[in-house]
């Protein structure tokens, strides 16, 4: 059962439309974290902050912001063009792209104003970075209950699975012993994520390990690792991607 709602399917189609122009992008990563990004933008208040620390998933953020009226169609479809506002890694309020930076910046945001909520979305492969664990120590030291990390745990990184490349398990226990409230859930179930993000818990930072499927929704992007960062996409492939999102083909 694909369990994607109409909005999630429409946003995926928009990502394909953007890639039809740019002919490149980290589509699998964007499809993996799309519901997590949607959930955060649905509940964010004006003073809250969101950092997409896994910057390569930015197409998800771009289409969600476009849907909320925060990014124009022109800027969205100029993706990766020379001089464009939006490229293969984002520079919105915060620029990310090199992994392992976002959580520390989020800590600064959370310390500066404890009345705001700060959401940081990490990739699972990103958790290989030592700086993530420096920040994990720091976040719990300061009891940052206004800081929430969402981990896009699709268990795949560029070369292969996280289990082959650099084992993260037991991931939830690791965050727990670092002093965080740690939960796990289906990262494509938007209602669950939103409900969890709005639940008040203890005086600790929180991490939500979201089990996701890289390339979620389309057979081609779910199963073919070469689509991690795809360039020189053909018309035929664009057509296949769109067909993959037709109701009868959805995974």
């Amino acid at each position: 059962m694909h369990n994607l709602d109409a909005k999630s399917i429409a946003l995926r189609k928009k990502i394909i439309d953007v890639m039809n122009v740019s002919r490149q992008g980290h589509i699998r990563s964007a499809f993996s974290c799309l519901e997590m990004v949607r959930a955060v933008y649905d509940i964010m208040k004006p003073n809250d902050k969101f950092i997409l620390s896994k910057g390569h998933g930015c197409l998800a953020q771009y289409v969600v912001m476009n849907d909320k009226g925060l990014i124009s169609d022109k800027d969205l479809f100029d993706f990766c063009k020379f001089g464009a506002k939006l490229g293969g890694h984002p520079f919105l309020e915060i620029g990310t792209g090199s992994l392992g930076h976002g959580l520390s910046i989020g800590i600064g945001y959370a310390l500066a104003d404890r009345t705001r909520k700060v959401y940081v979305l990490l990739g699972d492969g990103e958790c290989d970075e030592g700086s993530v664990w420096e920040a994990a120590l720091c976040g719990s030291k300061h009891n940052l209950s206004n800081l929430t990390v969402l981990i896009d745990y699709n268990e795949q990184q560029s070369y292969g699975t996280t289990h082959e490349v650099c084992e993260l398990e037991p991931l939830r226990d690791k965050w727990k012993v670092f002093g965080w409230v740690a939960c796990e859930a289906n990262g494509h179930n938007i209602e669950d994520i939103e409900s969890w993000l709005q639940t008040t818990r203890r005086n600790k930072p929180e991490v939500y390990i979201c089990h996701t499927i890289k390339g979620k929704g389309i057979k081609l992007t779910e199963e073919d690792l070469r689509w991690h960062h795809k360039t020189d996409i053909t018309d035929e492939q664009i057509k296949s991607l769109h067909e993959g999102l037709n109701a009868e083909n959805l995974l």
Partner: protein
Amino acid sequence: MRKTCFNMIYELAKKDKRIVYIGSDVGSGTLQQMKEEMPDQFYMEGIQEQNIIGMATGLALSGKIVYVNTIATFLTRRCFEQVLLDVGRHNAKVRLLANGGGLVYSALGHTHVAPDDIALMRTIPNMTIVCPCDADEMKRLMPQTVDYPGPMYIRFGGDAEVVDMIDHKIGEGVIKQWGTQAIIITTGTMLQVVMGIPDVTIVYLPRIKPLNPQIPIWASLHPKVVTVEEHYINGGLGTAVLELLNEHGINKPVKRIGIPEGYCDLYGTREEQLKYYGITTEAIERAILSG
């Protein structure tokens, strides 16, 4: 110099809630009074430079003025990417307080000696680099750092004799003496080393980046240019001066005095290493005479 800097942070922070201090497990008791009186403005974090620089960026982007303090080597090399992509790219008001610039920690070996910090920081767009020469200058400098635009790298030299100097703003070079044989351009605590060399013009530059645009004019008035720095010959003040002169079509002989390429692994005192590398008053005088 360092103590004066901390005293100034305390005084400035009392008047300005935006001012925040972050230390990276530095000396016990540092800014104890600030910690007690202004706990919301004082953070002593672990040995985690990457995290601290990111954290400083988040604080600065929330309106704080953040002073980050640790040893120069760790503040530049260890977290270079965070300084470049977080602090630099976001033009964040983070002030990097670099302890032990140059050869101050000679006895601790090559891991703690910073002959390359200016070269590294020069590559970061938006970064202002300042090297005060003594405690008095640090005292005059610090209030100016609060609202100075963008990020700053503030290099602490070793304790040095106070030089009598008129007040100046960040970036203004000071001509300390006039002479005819050569123009010596220097920064930080090297000023004390070159002071008194006869018949040379001495230009003291507390700010290395951006470089004072008057340098080509001053240089054009002298037969030769000598740069003196407690830093690698390549990449620091001397290189910056060469580049600027070249851009202005000034082809004077430029003698760069500093540390040659290599690891500074001789231990000993700072003075012994300076002597070994020929960065003493006598050696500089000889270098000027030999052309």
